[in-house]
């Protein structure tokens, strides 16, 4: 019983992180129909930026926890957002009117460039940051107990706040309406006076910013990272996006949470060695019954 509860908590935090990263995949897919394979590496860059920011803040003697956390969040989100903007500008926009395959190859190339650039500039060894926030809340249940670290609580709070703010932006603001219009009919959007190139750029910035939020949270919690961390978490987040229905924003968040929960439960109750097998099997099973994902809309052929 206590294991189940403990893994539910762990799974929810993991899932919220998957959800944040999945947002970048799903929004980019929704608006230009491509899988941004460099997105996991954008997340990886944000891990390094987190460490750089923390080092900078401690160097200037600003070592109270709230200042470091919020300073690091702001710095990392802005710089990672700039990475997202530059990547779209350099690697994808010149290929806007070419085949989907060219853009896909360009994305894989961008992913390799980012990994190698970080490896060369930061070294191939695993890096780490000190623990910023320690301590936990402990609930005793029967013979066992459930422990929720303050850091996990903070991750949950920050991740769901991030998703909430993004949902508000997309649903209620002018930028959000322009994003949705461009997603639904890019040509019509441009005829109505929307600069669709700028909207696409802002989607990349938003996606990168969400990945940066995830990057900061995971790095603060886990402490260690290397130039390759973006790969596996990127694949997982992509799975979450497909699971929820790629192109659907609530789908990405839901897919992330479902994937995180089921992975944690499987790892806790059955076998942690086979948790990846389980998450990808889950994807296959859901796609058999709902080919466009949980909240995705089936593609309707226009006659």
């Amino acid at each position, binding site marked *: 019983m206590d294991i189940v509860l403990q893994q539910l908590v762990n799974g929810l935090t993991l899932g919220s992180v998957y959800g944040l990263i999945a947002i970048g995949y799903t929004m980019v897919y929704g608006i230009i129909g491509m899988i941004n394979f460099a997105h996991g590496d954008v997340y990886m860059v944000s891990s390094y930026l987190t460490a750089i920011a923390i080092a900078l803040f401690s160097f200037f003697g600003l070592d109270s926890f709230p200042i470091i956390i919020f300073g690091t969040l702001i710095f990392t989100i802005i710089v990672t957002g700039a990475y997202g903007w530059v990547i779209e500008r350099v690697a994808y926009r010149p290929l806007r009117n070419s085949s989907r395959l060219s853009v896909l190859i360009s994305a894989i190339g961008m992913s390799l460039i980012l990994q190698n650039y970080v490896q060369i500039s930061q070294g191939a060894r695993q890096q780490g940051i000190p623990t910023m926030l320690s301590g936990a809340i402990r609930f005793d249940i029967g013979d066992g107990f459930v422990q929720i670290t303050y850091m996990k609580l903070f991750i949950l709070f920050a991740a769901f706040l991030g998703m909430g703010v993004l949902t508000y932006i997309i649903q209620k603001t*002018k930028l959000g*309406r*322009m994003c*949705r*219009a461009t997603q*639904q*009919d890019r*040509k*019509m*959007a*441009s*005829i*109505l*006076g*929307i*600069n*669709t190139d700028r909207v696409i750029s802002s989607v990349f910035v938003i996606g990168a910013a969400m990945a940066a939020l995830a990057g900061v949270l995971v790095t603060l919690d886990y402490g260690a990272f290397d130039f390759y961390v973006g790969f596996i978490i990127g694949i997982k987040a992509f799975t979450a996006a497909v699971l929820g229905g790629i192109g659907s924003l609530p789908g990405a968040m839901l897919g992330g949470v479902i994937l995180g929960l089921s992975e944690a439960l499987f790892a806790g109750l059955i076998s942690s060695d086979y948790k990846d097998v389980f998450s990808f099997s889950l994807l296959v099973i859901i796609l058999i019954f709902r080919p466009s994902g949980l909240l995705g809309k089936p593609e309707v052929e226009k006659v």
Partner: protein
Amino acid sequence: MSALLQFKDVDVHYGPIQALKKVCLEVNQGEIVTMIGSNGAGKSTLLMSIFGQPRISDGQIIYQGEDISQKSAHYVASNGLAQSPEGRRIFPGMSVEENLLMGTIPIGMEHCDEDMQRMFELFPRLKERRNQRASTMSGGEQQMLAIARALMSRPKLLLLDEPSLGLAPIIVKQIFQILADVASTGMTIFLVEQNANHALKLADRGYVLVNGEIRLTGSGDDLLVNPEVRDAYLGGH
């Protein structure tokens, strides 16, 4: 008086196929001009080429004295040209109100509430359905929404691409009645239609487009009684 919009020897190609051949036309301030032509004559191509989609291969499109043929679509839209396109192209996942809001992009939200009220008076059906998803509406309602969305930008020139397409005769009649109301406010309208009867009755002047070339031009009334037009577009009776 110089024309608000003028096509000068415009050619458009789709690969090896020429869709428009040396098209010349003009729309003056305050006029209702129509272009009639059958399926595939190049009517929609002509309207979309104003927004650079597709780009013209030769000639000039002059709007308010400026050649806009190489400008971006959003630049053109920001300068007072609004289109209700072929197939309506409303945003299916948005509510009626949100679709109307999309029309305000070129001018901002300043007149939004006032204009939306005006649209609801012009198209009472839209008011009933203001919070409904646009994709769940009937074809006629979607067409009204597309026209209203175009009007929300307070355009200097309203471009309409086949507002009668696929609609029941009674709805077509309603829509043309509304267009006549809009025209009576002094709006300049360039209307592309297959429904020659309605279009020519509404218009001050008309052009007839055949296989990408302008075959005939004249006042709406003259074209209505022109034997060639009667045979080809008015059922020959």
